[in-house]
């Protein structure tokens, strides 16, 4: 409880800095913290990644198995994305079934991957209506210092890109790389007072009023968005958030390779 209450002094300090165009850690409003991406970190997964954005760290694994397609998409593989906010990552995370925060997070990450058609699910059909590849993308947050949407999305995309379809082990010929078509990147803008900033730290998130996650594809086209928190964004802020996501997305996409 004590941790969820932000001291007035800290809140005022962040507000004053932002009014001055500054941030607690000295970054510019549109500056992302240092990003590191490692792939193939877990052998037992078909694809995996460990991603750090500043002090936020996630590990993502892709597990693939053969199963039945959904009735309405008989010629497509199945994608399931799941994010776990495990208590290792933060004093404020608790064990137990997924809460609304982790479900929203899973769904926003899923939407970016699904709507950009990053995974060519038709190529993951083995026998229409009967056998397709089932993809489980499981995200675990290991260390939490803000901006889970972008960290989880980056981790998931990097893990998927590193995945090898385990055809051989399933008696389906030679293994081959996961069929992908593009690299979706999400960039989240946070509203504090009347200002926007990207890649928020936990302290910044605690005093935020609204957020907008924008996922773009390689062409800079929009593929998914999510507005969150109980504040309201102006139309101008929405446009700025989109422009920022497109611009920063180009650099971040290069890091994924």
């Amino acid at each position: 409880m004590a941790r969820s209450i932000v001291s007035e002094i800290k809140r005022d300090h962040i507000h004053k800095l932002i009014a001055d165009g500054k941030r607690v850690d000295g970054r510019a409003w549109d500056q992302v913290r240092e990003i590191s991406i490692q792939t193939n970190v877990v052998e037992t997964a078909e694809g995996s990644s460990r991603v750090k954005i500043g002090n936020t760290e996630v590990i993502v694994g892709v597990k693939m198995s053969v199963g039945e397609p959904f009735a309405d998409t008989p010629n497509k593989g199945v994608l399931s994305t799941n994010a776990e906010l495990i208590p290792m990552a933060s004093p404020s995370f608790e064990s137990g079934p997924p809460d609304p925060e982790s479900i929203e997070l899973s769904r926003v990450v899923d939407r970016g991957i699904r709507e950009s058609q990053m995974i060519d699910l038709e190529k993951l059909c083995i026998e229409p209506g009967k056998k397709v590849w089932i993809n489980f993308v499981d995200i675990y947050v290991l260390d939490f210092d803000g901006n889970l949407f972008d960290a989880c999305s980056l981790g998931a995309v990097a893990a998927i890109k590193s995945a090898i379809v385990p055809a051989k082990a399933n008696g389906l010929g030679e293994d081959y790389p996961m069929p992908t078509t593009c690299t979706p990147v999400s960039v989240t803008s946070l509203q504090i007072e009347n200002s926007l900033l990207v890649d928020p730290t936990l302290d910044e998130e605690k005093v935020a009023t609204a957020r907008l996650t924008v996922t773009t594809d390689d062409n800079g086209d929009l593929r998914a968005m999510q507005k969150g928190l109980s504040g309201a964004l102006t139309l101008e802020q929405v446009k700025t958030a989109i422009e920022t996501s497109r611009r920063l997305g180009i650099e971040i996409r290069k890091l994924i390779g």
Partner: protein
Amino acid sequence: MNNESMTRELVLPGDLLDAGTMKPGEGTYVHDGKIFAAMLGIKSVKSNFVNVIALGGRYIPAPGDMIIGKVIDIGPSNWLVDIYSPYPAPLHVNEVPWRVEFGDTARYLAVGDTLLAKVLSVDETKRVQVTMKEQGLRKLQGGQIVEISHSKVPRVIGKNGSMIQMIKTYTNCRIFIGQNGRIWMDGNMEDMVHAMQAIKMIDEGAQTLKLTERVKEFLESVYRKEE
């Protein structure tokens, strides 16, 4: 500092500290007549007591400690104060410098307020009481709060206050240090950022060599640049 504790030796839980001549001090335990380290820290010998000085860990309140607290709940006759410790501390209306009617507590201190207080008492099960009824104890407003490990507080202060004095001199900030590891500062925005960076340097490098010199170099470099 006396010569006895000139060497800074890292010890780990279970390390043998002494086999007979010394007395067990803080952070140690005795097993089979020998003294062992009970935590990770720096071995220190003072007047025949061998101690382990913690490098981390949570703040455990002791009577008389000056602390910086945060109000986290309000009752009709007291406030509950987070003191950056496993133990939240009630502040009773009789322990504040104002005359507060029953049920009127929220008018004086609100949830999220920061205060400079003193630990009044701690019982066997670590139930804590804090007080603001002493000169200088008060609600803190404006400025900025930094939280570090309580074990680094002596290093932030420095010998006879030399470290903190240096930071104050360069940055022109007013700074209060709570023994619980919360530090409050006020000054102009730029200066506070620098003071905070200096304190973070100490927090992260508390066991490293020539800390004072490095902090001084840092402060000198930022202030030379600005002039």
